[in-house]
């Protein structure tokens, strides 16, 4: 595959997306549209860190599904490099999606309880085996990735149910990193974790960024986490992008309802606590 090296990695052009509502029974074959995202324009450049924030139900997860090639938008186009992914058949699409590492939301539902950690981590590499990826090479790759995310090597032989929430999240990040992605997509990476573990994961993500410089796309409803990971922020409200810009600018001069609420609540917070850090 020859990449023409465009300036963006992911680009969304006028994407309107949503779900088809399925009525019960035989009428389920006739479907109606329910729009969740309207006219989204977005591009993710190389080594860029973007946070997508919005209240729950604002369509953040749907946007991720569109980017991951799982939900065909009603109109508009989604480019990854120069490929319009929804014009490609699934087999071809998956080859391009290899360059996107996805860390799902809930670490407790995202690992197959029947597989050992080493089998979970091998999975993204299995398609490479045909292209001469040697068995021993896979093994050493998996081992180095496990070390990278700060897990002991004995984890490889364990089953997910023996791991704690933070360790599961590390396994998921490792799984996303195995195929050497150019973009790392994180869907609420800390919402299921405790505060003390949350900081470990945030620091891990930052370390990974320092080391490999992948573009990072973070989806969250918590601005305080977004500010630690992202440079640029995109606010989604009522199905549309309402605000966009560098995180410091947006925080000092919020425009949208969501941001105003969030910033004011945190300002109060700081004043009341009078904490000095």
């Amino acid at each position, binding site marked *: 595959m020859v990449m023409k090296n465009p300036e963006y990695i992911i680009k969304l052009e006028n994407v309107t997306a949503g779900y088809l509502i399925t009525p019960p029974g035989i009428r389920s074959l006739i479907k109606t549209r329910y729009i969740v995202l309207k006219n989204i324009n977005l591009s993710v450049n190389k080594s860029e860190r973007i946070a997508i924030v919005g*209240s*729950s139900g604002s369509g953040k997860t749907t946007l991720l599904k569109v980017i991951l090639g799982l939900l065909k938008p009603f109109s508009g186009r989604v480019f990854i490099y120069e490929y319009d992914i929804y014009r490609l058949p699934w087999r071809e699409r998956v080859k391009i999606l290899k360059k996107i590492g996805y860390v799902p939301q809930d670490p407790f539902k995202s690992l197959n309880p029947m597989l050992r950690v080493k089998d979970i981590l091998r999975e993204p590499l299995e398609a490479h085996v045909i292209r001469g990826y040697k068995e021993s090479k896979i093994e050493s790759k998996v081992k180095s990735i496990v070390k990278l995310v700060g897990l002991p090597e004995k984890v490889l032989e364990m089953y997910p149910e023996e791991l704690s929430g933070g360790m599961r999240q590390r396994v998921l990040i490792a799984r996303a990193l195995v195929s050497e992605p150019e973009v790392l997509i994180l869907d609420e990476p800390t919402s299921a974790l405790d*505060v003390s573990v949350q*900081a470990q994961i945030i620091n891990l993500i930052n370390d990974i960024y320092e080391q490999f410089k992948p573009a990072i796309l973070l989806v969250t409803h918590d601005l*305080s986490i977004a500010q630690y990971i992202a440079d640029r922020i995109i606010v989604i409200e009522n199905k549309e992008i309402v605000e966009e810009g560098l995180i410091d600018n947006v925080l000092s001069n919020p425009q949208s309802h969501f941001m105003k609420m969030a*910033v004011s*609540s945190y300002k109060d917070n700081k004043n009341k606590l009078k904490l000095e850090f």
Partner: protein
Amino acid sequence: MVLAIVMENLKVGYIIEDEVFWAVKGVDLVVEEGTTLCIIGESGCGKSTLASAITGILPPYALTDGKLKLFDHVVINGQLRNYNGIRGKITAYIPQNPGTSLNPFLTVEEHFYYVLRSNFKSDREFSKKIAMEILPKVNLDSSVLEKYPHELSGGMQQRVIIALALATNAQILVADEPTSFIDAHLRLQIIELLGRLQREFKKTLIVITHDLLTTSTICDYIAIMYAGKIMEVGPREKVLRNPRHPYTKMLLETTPILGVKKRLKPIPGEPPSLGKEYQACLFLDRCPYKSKECYSDPQIQVIENSHFSKCWKALEAPWL
């Protein structure tokens, strides 16, 4: 000064497959009437179990030990539990998930009716009158009375639940993670509402949470809980400004605050698993300040009036 809640070496555990797992491993705590106490801890540290012990919703396979007194009722005495006349009359519970805590087949008005009927044998007229009085207090207008839970947003559902807890006229309100299912930017509103109501009605409020920053804005006292025991208790300002337990200090440093961009200092390791018994200090594995004496169970150290810490080094406090 009336004491609302008195716990003396309270232990609560569960029987799971013939084995006893202690979730709360000996808690001594006294709460004055009309104050707000915030119990902060990570998941699995037993804080929800403590909440259900106070409100009287422990499952039948739970085991108890020690003593729990609510006003002048002895509720837990050793293995005996007696919640007669407690639930709904002295304690009220504000549950974690508002979406699943309201019956989808009942309107808000009917919720008020059933709650009040079970406590005061009141009729529909009376319950409607009470509901009309209380709903404005939680910033809802009376039009929600006709609505079903699914027609309300998450924040409104949470307000309805708070209103239901107030309607029973119970003196002790226990809120179990009242903000965990609400978006980050709306959390402060609900917390401030709780604080305002507590002051207005002079209730005793216990807030169970893991969200140190938002919740601590309303409380008078903070209790830090870890692995089934209380690590530090004290007035809010003192605990936050002058933490006398390394866990409190590290928890403060690990919490992300908007607008303050420092590198987070995570607490290494993971909390100990439920049910294990330790002779040593519970925080030993994760503590950077440990020394020889930490291998014995720390005594409670009095730092100041009503500021206690369960750490051998609380008085020197090398982390400050």
